[in-house]
């Protein structure tokens, strides 16, 4: 059940092409000045409140991308942390960024340095505040739990991909009374964040976060494209189940819509028809 190449089912190429088009067209539209809307995402409004509290108490803010391996999710998490860092730079609030992946750690160094620079406070940047603890899941968790308790952090931001250790972070943060905002694409960890954090950003909200925070036209435009893509998924689902109801689950159309190897029969019939 997996795709090595687009040819395993050309529907993949069609879907990706459609989504890419929808995203790019709307990015261009946004750049040309179209006014785009984004709905409220409650947890994100609390970021400023959390930063404010940290500043008041003079205790640090932690940013935890967890064990997220370097990739699209990690870059998004770092983009969010960069935004948060720009905010705290204004008040010179202390921060710690704790990563469990060395590549993410390396990129985070750059991102945070940039954030302080862009906020006009390069003097506040201290490389020691961006830390790689361990790439071993629970060694990392023990380090984070210890640090959260020792430094009695006032606000904790957890963004990225998380595994079983999520609850260790969230509960220790809760113990010291930190305001906690978590955002993750890992569905299985969402319930634990919901139970232990003040606000939880779920699923795709994670990718909408940077658009919401920065209101950059490119990101808002992309979001419109993403909504169109979801509409495509919804319509495909509706159309597909109706087709399956009428013609049965073995109907050729169902095979064409994303079943690995589903186009083989189609191609062979076309090729045979053409060849003879």
């Amino acid at each position, binding site marked *: 059940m997996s795709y090595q190449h687009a040819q395993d089912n050309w529907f993949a190429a069609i879907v990706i092409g459609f989504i890419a088009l929808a*995203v790019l067209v709307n990015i261009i539209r946004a750049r040309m000045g179209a006014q785009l809307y984004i709905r409220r995402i409650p947890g994100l409004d609390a970021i400023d409140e959390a930063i404010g509290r940290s500043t008041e108490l003079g205790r640090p803010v932690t940013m935890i991308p967890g064990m997220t391996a370097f990739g699209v999710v990690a870059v998004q998490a770092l983009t969010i942390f960069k935004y948060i860092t720009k905010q705290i730079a204004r008040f010179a609030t202390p921060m710690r960024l704790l990563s469990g992946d060395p*590549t993410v750690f390396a990129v985070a160094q750059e991102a945070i340095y940039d954030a302080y620079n862009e906020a006009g406070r390069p003097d506040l940047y201290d490389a020691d505040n961006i830390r*790689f603890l361990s790439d071993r899941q629970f060694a990392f968790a023990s380090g984070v739990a210890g640090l959260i308790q020792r430094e009695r952090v006032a606000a904790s931001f957890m963004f990225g991909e998380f595994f079983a250790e999520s609850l260790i972070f969230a509960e220790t943060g809760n113990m010291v009374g930190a305001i906690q905002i978590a955002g993750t694409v890992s569905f299985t960890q969402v319930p*634990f964040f919901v*139970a*232990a954090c003040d606000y939880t950003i779920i699923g795709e909200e994670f990718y909408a976060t940077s658009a919401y925070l920065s209101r950059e036209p490119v990101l808002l435009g992309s979001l419109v494209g993403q909504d169109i893509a979801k509409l495509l998924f919804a319509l495909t689902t509706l159309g597909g189940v109706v087709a399956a109801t009428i013609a049965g689950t073995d109907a050729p159309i169902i095979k064409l819509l994303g079943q690995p190897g589903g186009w083989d029969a189609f191609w062979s019939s076309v090729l045979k028809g053409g060849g003879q």
Partner: protein
Amino acid sequence: MHMLTNLMAQQTIWQLPEGSRVLLATLIVLGAFVLILGLVPVLQTLPPRGRRAIIVTVTFLAGLFFAAEFFLPVDWTAIFPKDDPKRNFLTPAIQPAQNVLQIIGALALGLGTFGLVRLHLRNAVQRRAQWGYSIVLLVSFVVMATLSILNTLAEKEIVERGPVLKRAFSILFDYTLVQLDAAMFSLIAFYIFSAAYRAFRIRSIEASILMFTAMLVMIGVVPLGAFISYTLLGLPEGASPEGANFLTQLEHSIGLPKIADWVLTQLNAPAQRAIEFGVGIGGLAMAIRLWLSLERGVT
């Protein structure tokens, strides 16, 4: 193209001749270091715009390689032999490309470790608060790194695995590190209890739904659920008989284990799938923006 792969298989241009391989290889590696690091002063003369152009180009090319390999048709049976049809001309290069990423990952690990050691060395040298613990970390790091590297080399049969190495490694890895893993992992059991106690209150509709489903599943998945449903309440166990009427069917499907299973497979699965679709689409849009350097993200 097939000829080219054949050529590569015979190793005429890519492979050094057998005889003086070690010396030649060493020279080439040294040359590569001089060449690549020698580029740095040249790169440094670029204006900011040129620097950005290089980064954007490199990003695009790296993405293009993997994207093209995925999208290009693979059944070029005229070019490739029939027994191996699932590839295009880029496919043979995928494994080497993955290896390059692995090597960069290993170098990044060196970077991360360097950062960790530097922080704690500074703590120790400058006698910052709690510097004693930094010493603990450094000592355990040095000892374990030595043993672990020796152990890896012993696996490659480069060094001999003496009894001391074997014992010491086993004590530090099997009896310390693994035990610490298990202990830290099991802490979650305590935390799951306190989190449930605190959070599962009938405060809002959402919190109540969360609480009731969690409790239902919790009871349903352990034998106690079966005990309550089948022994105490006397509900019929197992699947309902063929052609049974609606009431019998209902009776057979309201045991707690059945309901818990139904919630997990029929109610949880579509919600999870919807989230997955959103995450996939969001990730795809992000990947496109990063590939084309459309957003001022982290680079």
